[in-house]
């Protein structure tokens, strides 16, 4: 198992390298000039040109690319923002806790509410519980996050005055953003759990379990759920990755200085280092989460664990066979 993990970690390096090259190239060819952005609307072309030279933006593509790759991969320096006087890494680290808080809370809500909802729906298929669950799921998928966020603000902040409408501070500032953000996640979690469970509940080994005389509850939690977990975990992993990337809409509505806003407004400003740094950071984070998810798979389903280990074993076998 360790060998598998190490192998995956090593694989991350070429992946990140690829991401860096792609995002650099995209930003390079992207129209728009950071120098013009810094200087403002009424700057003359001459002034803009001088600024470009000062920023090193006029050097050829390969030179800039190699310079950047060298900087990131050999010196572990993500660069400095063109606008803020701050390294990209510290900018990200400052904002990461906010995004992280939201992501974790939403993830917990998603798992704790979505999964039981889906299980209930699957067990009482076509019954009342199932219908309610599916309506909630439909609502979660259809309701735009922006709209829901504003509705929550109007209700809880303006009309009732119970919660702050925007900003950061104590835990109460996270309540509305997390609810707005988690809604869609809960819905998709419920749906995935339901369909996964439905598939599993029809399996032969469930009939076997019933024939043994186990109670429905035991069958559900000891036989059905563990088998239904794989797709469920995938959804959780994906969701976590996306949320850490930053949910721009929520951050924008609630004025939360998270990574989503950071990277997105950097795109608008053509703040290249921040955009590239943000994407790379997200890429690395996502890779790690995917690795974590894959490792969890191995513990949930022994066949997958055997697969991971078998890959080495068969390699060893072949090596021995070939002498």
């Amino acid at each position: 198992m360790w060998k598998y993990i190490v192998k995956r970690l090593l694989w991350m390096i070429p992946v990140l390298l690829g991401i860096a090259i792609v995002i650099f190239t995209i930003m390079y060819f992207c129209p728009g000039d950071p120098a013009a952005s810094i200087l403002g609307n009424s700057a003359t072309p001459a002034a803009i040109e001088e600024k470009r030279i000062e920023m090193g933006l006029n050097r050829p593509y390969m030179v800039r690319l190699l310079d950047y790759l060298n900087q990131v991969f050999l010196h572990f320096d993500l660069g400095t923002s063109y606008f803020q006087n701050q390294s990209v890494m510290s900018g990200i680290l400052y904002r990461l806790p906010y995004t992280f808080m939201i992501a974790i809370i939403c993830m917990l809500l998603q798992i704790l509410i979505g999964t039981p909802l889906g299980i209930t729906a699957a067990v009482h298929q076509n019954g009342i519980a199932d219908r309610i669950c599916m309506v909630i799921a439909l609502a979660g998928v259809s309701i735009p996050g922006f709209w829901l966020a504003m509705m929550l603000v109007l209700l809880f902040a303006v009309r009732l005055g119970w919660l702050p409408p925007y900003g950061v501070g104590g835990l109460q500032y996270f309540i509305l953003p997390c609810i707005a953000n988690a809604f869609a996640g809960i819905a998709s979690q419920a749906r995935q759990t339901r369909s996964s469970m439905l598939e599993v509940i029809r399996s032969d080994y469930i009939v076997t379990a019933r024939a043994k005389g186990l109670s429905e509850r035991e069958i559900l939690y000891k036989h059905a759920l563990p088998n239904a977990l794989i797709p469920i975990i995938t959804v959780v992993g994906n969701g976590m990755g996306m949320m850490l990337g930053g949910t721009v809409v929520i951050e924008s509505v609630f004025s939360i200085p998270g990574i989503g806003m950071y990277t997105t407004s950097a795109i608008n400003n053509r703040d290249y280092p921040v955009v590239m740094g943000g994407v790379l950071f997200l890429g690395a984070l996502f890779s790690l989460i995917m690795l974590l998810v894959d490792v969890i798979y191995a513990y949930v389903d022994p066949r997958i664990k055997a697969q991971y280990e078998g890959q080495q074993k068969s390699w060893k076998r072949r090596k021995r066979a070939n002498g």
Partner: protein
Amino acid sequence: MGKSEVPFIEVKNLKVHYTSEGRKIHAVNQVSFSLQKGETLGLVGETGAGKTTIAKSILRILPEPPARIEDGEIFLEGTDLLKLAEDEMRKIRGRKIAMIFQDPMTALNPVMRVGKQIAEGIALHEKVSAREAEEKAKKMLEMVGIPGSRYRDYPHQFSGGMKQRVVIAMALSCSPDLLLADEPTTALDVTIQAQVLDIIKNLQKEFKTSMIMITHDLGIVAEVCDNVAVIYAGQVVEYGSREEIFDNPLHPYTIGLFGSLPDINSDVERLSPIMGMPPDPANLPGGCAFSPRCPYADETCKNTDVKLDAIDGTHSCRCLHWRRTAQMKAETS
């Protein structure tokens, strides 16, 4: 049908239907039979005849929304299983009645260790500690020819035949009084079939378990069963002891079954299967269900609701013209 003693298990007028896309599928139509303790009954018939449904009805593990037990009684040592509350039924499942399933590849939980799956049943039904359940499970594994050291392995680490043996070990772990074996060897290759069958036979002898063997393989019937019930379109069309059925099949369907067996000794270019297809259970023909395919059928067959007719001993047949068939056979032999 049975002897004068109180039968160990008695199925009376069992009627089961499935509802699918608004259509009613009559899977089991008034099936009755009984079994003495220690006996083996073979349920023979084509796929889709309703044999598995009968077995699952006894255990009441039919998927309830599409399936419904419309009518009938199933007496186990005098208690009607169909009238029991669910938690009472649970005490019987795995304990008094156990089932072996057709497809060993999917019958085991892939993410649970094999030994645990066996021990689970033991711990549930017998008041033993976890350690003792584990010991007992290991013993069961040994009994089916699997080393106890493989207790902690997962199902995917076993071959098909070994998986089926695990299923057997699981079923017999609590020494059930009745074993329902649903085509236990169908999914295995021929060489393994014999092994598994032997294990079943030996265990049955050891634990004195009654068995209902569901199969479409007459060879197995010959080897294992005391009595035979031939099922067609959800009905028992012929019933008798093994000798009665094998020596003197009188229902055209039963004859057809024997007839479509390849004979090692004769040089036949083609097998002679029974013409036609089994009827659509949602749309059963009136009268004798077999009449569309029966080479001896006439108008009366299509219109009359045929009942089981006693022939002699335990032998009975659901055919209007069984006498004529018997005569035909006497003439040709």
